[in-house]
């Protein structure tokens, strides 16, 4: 069963350094305007972004910068006002089958009336996979996130970190090409966050899935990403696209003491600060 999940080859150096070439998710001139009682509000201002196969792209920006809006448009949950999103060359108008999302609020994104195992099986059953096969896939997935024994429990019986792992397992079992994560580690404590960050890196390395992770935590974005896309405040556009040339595999201690880490971090932080100052 493990083999069926490793659809793509493990990530190579080429991919990590951004030379993969093939664009799997493309965002073209994406704009989003909201109608509010106070009038129209331009949230996203013509965003252009290319995500390459196997990449780990982190998106950071100040609060209220429309990071979540961008992610929702990319996932097909929200229709843009202008521009388009293309997955493998196909236009995204509703959530496509090759894409999975992990949301920030894990307690609300897992179904409380189903066991952990059933939760992970849910998308598989919905697309018609037979029960026994779904169950095997789900359990492999749960094992991959370190929750092999939690299948029979209910989500609300687990800790926050474990619940988010279940959500990640669910996304993984779906075998998507692209995984979108919306501030997935923001609601857990620092220690759990470090574990989950490493889990995300391991899963990307094992299963070769492309990841776009939205976060407000700059350290996290540099630690995890092959690239960090820096957004400006509203109306949001891309301020910078920083290539993270830190060595792989990353380590919570070793990587973070590297001078290069501090440089990248400083650069991004300065960008965000100056963006705030100019408002």
């Amino acid at each position, binding site marked *: 069963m493990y083999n069926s999940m490793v659809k793509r080859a493990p990530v190579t150096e080429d991919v990590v350094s951004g030379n993969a070439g093939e664009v799997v998710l493309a965002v073209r001139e994406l704009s989003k305007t909201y109608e509010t009682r106070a009038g129209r509000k331009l949230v996203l201002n013509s965003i252009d972004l290319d995500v390459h196969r196997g990449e780990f792209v982190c998106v950071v920006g100040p609060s209220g910068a429309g990071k979540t809006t961008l992610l929702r448009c990319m996932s097909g949950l929200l229709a843009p006002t202008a521009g388009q999103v293309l997955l493998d060359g196909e236009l995204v108008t509703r959530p496509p089958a090759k894409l999975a999302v992990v949301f920030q609020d894990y307690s609300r994104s897992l179904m409380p009336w189903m066991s952990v195992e059933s939760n992970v099986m*849910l998308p598989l059953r*919905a697309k018609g996979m037979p029960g026994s096969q779904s169950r095997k896939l789900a359990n492999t997935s749960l094992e991959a996130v370190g929750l092999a024994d939690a299948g029979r429990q209910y989500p609300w*019986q687990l800790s926050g970190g474990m619940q988010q792992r279940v959500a990640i397992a669910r996304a993984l079992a779906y075998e998507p090409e692209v995984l979108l994560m919306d501030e997935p580690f923001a609601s857990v404590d620092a220690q759990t966050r470090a574990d989950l960050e490493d889990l995300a890196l391991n899963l990307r390395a094992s299963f070769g899935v492309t990841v776009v992770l939205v976060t407000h935590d700059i350290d996290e974005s540099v630690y995890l990403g092959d690239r960090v896309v820096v957004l400006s405040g509203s109306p949001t556009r891309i301020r910078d696209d920083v290539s993270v040339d830190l060595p792989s595999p990353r380590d919570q201690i070793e990587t973070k003491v590297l001078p290069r880490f501090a440089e990248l971090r400083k650069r991004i932080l300065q960008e965000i600060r100056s963006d705030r100052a100019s408002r």
Partner: protein
Amino acid sequence: MAFRRAIDFRLKTRLLTIFLELILPVGAVAAWWALSAGSTSVYFPPLSQIVTALRETWLFEHWSTDVFPSLENLALGFLVSCLVGIGLGVLLGLLPIVADAVAPVLEFLRAVPGVALLPAAILLLGIGAETRISLIVFGTMWPILLNTIDGVRAIDPMVRDVAESYQIRGLGWLRRIVLPAASPQIVAGMRTALSVGITVMVFSELSGTTNGIGFQILSAQRSFAVPQMWAGMILLGIIGYLLNIAFRGFEHVVLRWHRGMRQLARS
């Protein structure tokens, strides 16, 4: 040693609780028995007579001719109510604009006391079981329908996002996501509907019928068979109580996850 003492303590508290809970009902019944033993009042016969009437008349004579048909009507009416109420409720819950538009009409219909419609129902449908079942459906539908609408509308938008993002649609979506998510509200509506149903069942038989629990209680009253009347009332109480316990069992199973979740939130 301490372990054994702990078990003893828990056992003792348990027994004490059961004892306390039973004192009043058992004591009240015993007091009723004793106080009414020598009663000559027409309206308040001795409890012993009532129990005899219960055993002889109700439990055997009237069981198949009255009690069972009444309960059958209730079951049928409640079932139809659930199907229509939940089905329509889910539909309206998913179409909030329509639900808002028909809300005044529904509220008005809900406010009509079922009792007031009894004469009209008899005129329309005659004195058969259909009349009673229709009234039961009419009375019990509103709590189920309105609660279902509320429950579906209150589904967490995040749950809908997750379902959409994983392409869960159609019947599977209704069955695995919408209905379970709304189930606490729906079950609460069903609980209300059950007690309304019992009430409607009784009053639908107080007029224009030829059989049924309510009919027999009324007949007993009219022919001054007072012990039989009291026995009927007590039987109703017992039936209602048993139905409630059965429903609680159903609720226990269906909403186990909900209970667990809330217990955790409380602690």
